C-alpha cells in the first residue's frame, strides 16, 4: 500500500495565524506528555531499585540455591529459599488460563464483530466488559465455593483418562491449580475479548470485500481477511491477558491456599504462585530478613510480567508498521 501516493488535508502546511496559538497548545501538551512519560519511567525504575535493594541482601544470605532448590524455610536466624515450585505454578496456571480463555475470546470477538446484528453486539459487548468490573476477591470466593463443585467432576474424569500424563493425575480436594486456572481464564476473558474485538472490527472493508467478491462465504471471508488481519492484535491481547494472570493475587490465593504444601507437577494438586505466596505470608514481612526472601520472589514476578508485557508491546508496534 505504501506506494500509492495520495494527498490529504494533513499534508497541508498549517497557515501562520491560527498556528501560533496552536503551537503554544502543542508545547504545553508535549511538555505534559513528556513529563508524565518521564514520571512513569522514574516510577518503574524506583520499583525495580526497591526490589533489588531488598532482595540482594537476602539472596546473598540464602543458604539454598534460589533458582533450583525446592525449599522455603525462612526464619530470623537462617534463610533457605528457592523458587522453582512457585515459578512452575505461576507459569502453568497462567498458561492454562490462556489456553482456555484465548480461543473463547476469539470466538466471542468474531461473533460480536462479524455475525451479531449491531443491536445485539453492543449489549453483549458491554456484558463481557462487565466481567472485568467484578472485583477479583469475588472471583476467588465464587470459584472456591460455587464453581469448585462443577470443576471437581471434570478433574476426576480427566484424571481417569489422562492421569498417566502426570500433568492430570490424582486430584486433591479443595483448591487446585486447575480451578485457579479456570477462574483466571474468566478473569482475563474481558480484556482479551475487548482487544480482539477491536482489531477484528478494524479489518478494512476493502479486504473483506476482496474475499467476498471472490465468492467467499462469510466464514471463508473471516478466514481469508479478518483473522489474518487480526492475528498480531490477538497475540498481543493474549500476552496482556497472560501478564494479568501472572500477577493476579487474591483470587488465586483464596483458591490454592487451601492446599499450600501439597505441590506435585499435576494441575490437580495445590501449590502457590509468587503472588499468593507473598500475600499468604504478609505477616512475616515485618522482619526485614524474612521480607527479603519474599521480595526476591516478587522481583522474579516483576521480571516475568515485564517481559510478557514488553513482548506484547513489540508485537503491537510491528502490527502498526504492517497496517497502512
Amino acid at each position: 500500500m505504501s506506494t500509492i501516493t495520495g494527498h490529504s488535508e494533513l499534508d497541508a502546511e498549517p497557515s501562520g495565524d491560527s498556528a501560533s496559538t496552536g503551537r503554544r497548545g502543542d508545547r504545553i501538551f508535549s511538555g505534559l506528555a513528556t513529563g508524565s512519560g518521564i514520571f512513569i519511567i522514574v516510577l518503574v525504575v524506583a520499583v525495580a531499585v526497591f526490589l533489588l535493594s531488598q532482595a540482594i541482601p537476602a539472596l546473598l544470605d540464602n543458604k539454598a540455591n534460589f533458582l533450583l532448590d525446592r525449599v522455603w524455610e525462612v526464619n530470623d536466624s537462617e534463610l533457605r529459599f528457592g523458587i522453582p515450585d512457585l515459578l512452575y505454578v505461576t507459569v502453568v496456571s497462567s498458561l492454562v488460563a490462556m489456553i482456555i480463555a484465548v480461543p473463547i475470546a476469539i470466538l466471542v470477538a468474531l461473533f460480536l464483530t462479524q455475525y451479531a446484528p449491531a443491536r445485539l453486539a453492543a449489549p453483549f459487548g458491554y456484558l463481557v466488559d462487565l466481567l472485568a468490573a467484578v472485583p477479583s476477591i469475588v472471583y476467588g470466593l465464587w470459584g472456591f465455593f460455587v464453581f469448585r463443585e462443577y470443576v471437581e467432576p471434570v478433574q476426576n474424569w480427566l484424571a481417569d483418562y489422562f492421569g498417566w500424563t502426570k500433568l492430570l493425575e490424582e486430584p486433591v480436594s479443595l483448591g487446585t491449580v486447575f480451578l485457579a486456572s479456570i477462574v483466571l481464564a474468566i478473569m482475563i476473558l474481558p480484556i482479551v475479548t475487548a482487544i480482539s474485538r477491536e482489531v477484528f472490527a478494524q479489518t478494512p472493508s476493502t479486504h473483506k470485500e476482496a474475499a467476498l467478491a471472490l465468492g467467499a462465504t462469510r466464514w471463508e471471508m473471516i478466514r481469508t481477511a479478518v483473522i489474518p488481519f487480526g492475528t498480531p492484535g490477538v497475540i498481543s491481547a493474549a500476552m496482556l491477558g497472560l501478564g494479568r494472570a501472572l500477577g493476579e493475587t487474591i483470587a488465586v490465593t483464596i483458591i490454592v491456599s487451601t492446599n499450600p504444601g501439597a505441590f506435585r507437577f499435576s494441575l490437580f494438586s495445590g501449590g502457590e504462585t509468587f503472588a499468593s505466596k507473598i500475600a499468604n505470608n504478609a505477616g512475616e514481612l515485618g522482619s526485614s530478613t524474612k521480607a527479603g526472601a519474599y521480595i526476591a520472589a516478587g522481583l522474579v514476578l516483576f521480571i516475568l510480567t515485564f517481559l510478557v508485557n514488553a513482548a506484547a508491546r513489540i508485537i503491537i508496534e510491528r502490527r502498526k508498521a504492517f497496517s497502512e
Partner: protein
Amino acid sequence: MAQRIDVKDLNVYYSSFKAVEGVSMAVDPRTVTAFIGPSGCGKSTFLRTLNRMHEVIPGGRVEGSVQLNGRDLYAKEVDPVAVRRTVGMVFQRPNPFPTMSIFDNVAAGLRLNGEKRKKVLAERVEKSLRGANLWNEVKDRLAKPGAGLSGGQQQRLCIARAIAVQPQVLLMDEPCSALDPISTMAVEDLINELKTEYTIVIVTHNMQQAARVSDRTAFFNLAATGKPGRLVEINDTDKIFSNPTEKATEDYISGRFG
C-alpha cells in the same frame, strides 16, 4: 464463457434511501461497457448489484431483475456466493490480501473453490498472471508479499486474482483511479485483451478512458443530490461521444456540466 447481462427496471436501495432508479440495459458478451457520470450518481452502487455485492452492505437491497444468460441472479434459489464466483470484481483501490504472498493472492479464489492440487494451482496462477500482464514482473518473487508491489502492479495482481477463478463477467469500479498514467495504460491494454474472453463492465470517471476502452457507454445522472441516480442513455461509444441523443449527455461529455 462470456455471458450477456440483461437488467430490467432495477431500483437499488440503501435501507430506505433509493440510490438508483429504473435502470434497464443489456450488455452483450465479449464487449466492454463503460459507465460514466458525475460522482454520486450511483455507478458503483449499480455495478455492485451485478454480482450481488450490494447486499453485503447492511440495508442494501434491490427491486427489479438482473439476468445472466437468461437466469435471474436474484431468484430465491440462487446463492450469492455462486454468483460472485461467476461475476468477478476489481475495486477502485488495489486491495491485495496484505498478509498473503503474490502467489497466494492469485490462488486465493481457487483455494476457496476447494482446489488443493499444487500443480493445478501453479498452472492457473501463472496463466492468470500472464493474462494480467504481470507474470514477467513478478515471476521471480511469487513468494513475496503482494503489498510490496507498486500500485499499478497491485491492481493487475487484483485483476489476476479475479480472473484466476475464470469468471464469465468482470466488473471494474474505477480500476485506474489510484494509478499513474503508465500503469493506467497497462491496465487499459489488459482490458482490450481480456474482452476477447470476458464480458467487461467498467466504471470510469475519465471520459478519454471510456472512449479508448469501451464498445458501449452508459451515461448516468441524477436530478439533484438526494434524488436517485438514473441511466440517461446507453449507446455505442462512438455515438455517445460524437452524437448523443440526450442533451444531458452532451453537456456532460463536453464539460458543460452543472
